[in-house]
């Protein structure tokens, strides 16, 4: 490439969980956040209340699954006269489901982060396959801020950014304090350029 290298912010490594890696390094050193305080380019963690929300939701789903599996296990146990075995398997599966519902949200939280800069929005997520998706500000079509009943109780919201993309047609950013979600939304859709490219 003949062009001079552009001032860019390389994407961060995803090798370790980011308890204390460069959490305050601006994403894009060349770009100054002047107009919008949310667009400071600093990587931020999700609200820890999100873990609790996820746990409540996960436990709810797990309990429904465990209940229906329990009925099936009892029925099969009686039908084939293997009640101790089926109950044993059921207990084991139940335990695993409960553990997953409890542990997974904190793992997910550990690896999740977001950052808003003048360039747009970066979302980091994933426990096994870890990824950062970057949505440039000019590619935001519209946004939703939504709150479920549990989320409402904890005062957090999910900001969903819609793009014209295919795989990333909707990019959710969960676990934001409601005011933050609204501020980011306002920043992302505040478009003073005369553009009809919607």
């Amino acid at each position, binding site marked *: *490439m*003949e*062009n001079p290298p*552009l*001032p*860019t*912010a*390389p*994407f*961060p*490594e*995803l*090798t370790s969980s980011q308890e204390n890696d460069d959490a305050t390094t601006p994403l*894009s050193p060349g770009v100054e956040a002047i107009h919008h305080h949310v667009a400071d380019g600093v990587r931020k963690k999700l609200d820890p209340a999100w873990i609790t929300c996820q746990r409540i939701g996960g436990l709810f789903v797990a309990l429904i699954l465990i209940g229906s599996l329990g009925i099936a296990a009892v029925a099969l146990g009686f039908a084939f006269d293997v009640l101790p075995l089926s109950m044993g398997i059921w207990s084991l599966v139940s335990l695993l489901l409960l553990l997953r519902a409890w542990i997974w949200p904190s793992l997910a939280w550990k690896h999740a982060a977001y950052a808003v800069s*003048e*360039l*747009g929005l*970066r979302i980091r997520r*994933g426990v*096994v*396959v*870890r*990824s*950062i*998706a*970057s*949505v*440039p*500000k*000019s*590619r935001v079509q519209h946004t939703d801020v939504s709150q479920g009943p549990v989320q409402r109780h904890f005062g957090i919201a999910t900001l969903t950014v819609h*793009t*014209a*993309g*295919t*795989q*990333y*047609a909707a*990019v959710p950013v969960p676990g934001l304090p409601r005011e933050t979600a609204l501020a980011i939304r306002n920043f992302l859709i505040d478009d003073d*350029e005369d*553009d*009809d*490219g*919607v």
Partner: protein
Amino acid sequence: MESDRTTSALPDAGSPIVPDDGFHRTPTISILFLLLDGLRSTIPALLAFAVVSGGSRFAIAITLVFLLFVLLGSSLLRWISFAYRFDAEEMVLRTGILSRNERHVPYHRFQNIDLEQNPLHRFLKVAKVRLETASGGKPEAVISVLRLPDIEEMRARVFAPRGTKDPSDTESTSNVIERSRDAHATEEQEIEILHHGVGDLTLLGLISNRGLLVVAAAFGLIEQFVGFDNSEFWERWLGGAGDWIGRIDFQHMDYRLTALYATLLLVVFLAATRVLSIAWMLFTLWGFRLIRRGGDLRTAYGLITRITATIPRHRIQLLSWHESVLHQWTGTASLKVETAGGGAAGGDESSSQQMPGNAARLWLAPLARVAGLAVLFRQVTPDLGPNQQGPGEPGQLPWSPVSPRAWARLVRRNSLLLLLLSILSAIGLELSQFSIAYAALPLLLLPLVWIWSRRWTKRSGYVLTDRFIGFRSGAFGRRTSFVPLGKIQVVQFSQGFFDRRAVMARVKVDTAGANLSSHRVVIPYLDLEDARRLAGDLERHASETMFHW
């Protein structure tokens, strides 16, 4: 409805349902085509019914008559309820009788216009029109059918230069047409970029694997309607061949003769599929032409059903070409583009059957000469192709390779897959009466895995310029995709478990209307530092450009 359609600004007087506010109905002949469409979609169900009902003629006749009435009724209703109007800046589509729906679509939102003409259409000088916007999934409107002059008018409006719209003359819409027609006539002549004759299509048939699909389809049909156990049918049609095969003494044949017969059979099969392939290409792509008219590209092809697709150049989201080994031998490549319209139609077999031109990707050049690729690019996408400053040939772009360590990972992964295959077949063979030694056969492919992985690593890579990002991959054949930086929607940087272990990462670019199953800009096996820098560069470039559909 027999009035001259070019004076279409005049309302249709005397029509009770379409009021005189400039709406038009499609020509009366539409009813016939709607009816035919309806018949075509119900015929399979009808056949199934005929089979199930056990062939009671009376029941079938009653059903048929009933069905015809229903279809005729629905066709009439659809014809009456559908109306359209051209305003200065938007097209208004009206549907529905009880709950009426009026859809306003600005002209500049249209992604592409496709026409379909079977012989009946052509005889009556009409065409089925498919209008696509970037709303994803279904097309904005499928109009069955419009007269050709009306279609020209629509095209002129939809793809008119943006300057022609003038807020002052919203009333006299005909002025705009006149003006845009003038503009088209003077500034924008048609330039033929590509034309495929019989020779090209024959070559294409030889290269492509369409014949196999035809054979597969034939097998499916036979299974469905005849059945392979229908000895009477086979006796009648293949009696001679059967006798001939029957005379061969398979029991006492030595292995050389077996090999000879097997080879012969293979050769015959290959030849037959190639012939079918050629026939397929001749039928579907007959008279393929790629034309540029101003900023619009138009492709037209098809022997029996003729497809005409129009794409504005600046609507191209992704350009992709494929060189198989056979392509490389003949110095050719096949070129396709993606637009934001109809992306979801790709996976939908039924819709692509209705409109073969409208698979998610549009043919731009089924058989481009690699030597002329640079010229073709310049015509097709001045923004995208290897640019003026850069070298002309795509092969001469400054490609960066994927990580040289990728091949070790590929070898490991593919060897493991082969080993797994061996183990599974060993289990299978153990359960059957064959010798377990055959399970080692997949392992014979190990050297091939080695070569494949080496070549893949060496021949795959990416290129980033100030205009586009490109990615190419393939060990023997090769696929190459380009995305203009302005069409990047989302940049993704990711690491799976093995990526992290190997200190590598993957960079992916998401575009509008992407067909997720075909080759895209998804660059795997990058050294971590490369990937971080590339993702950062892409993010920066994408943020700096405005996205226009």
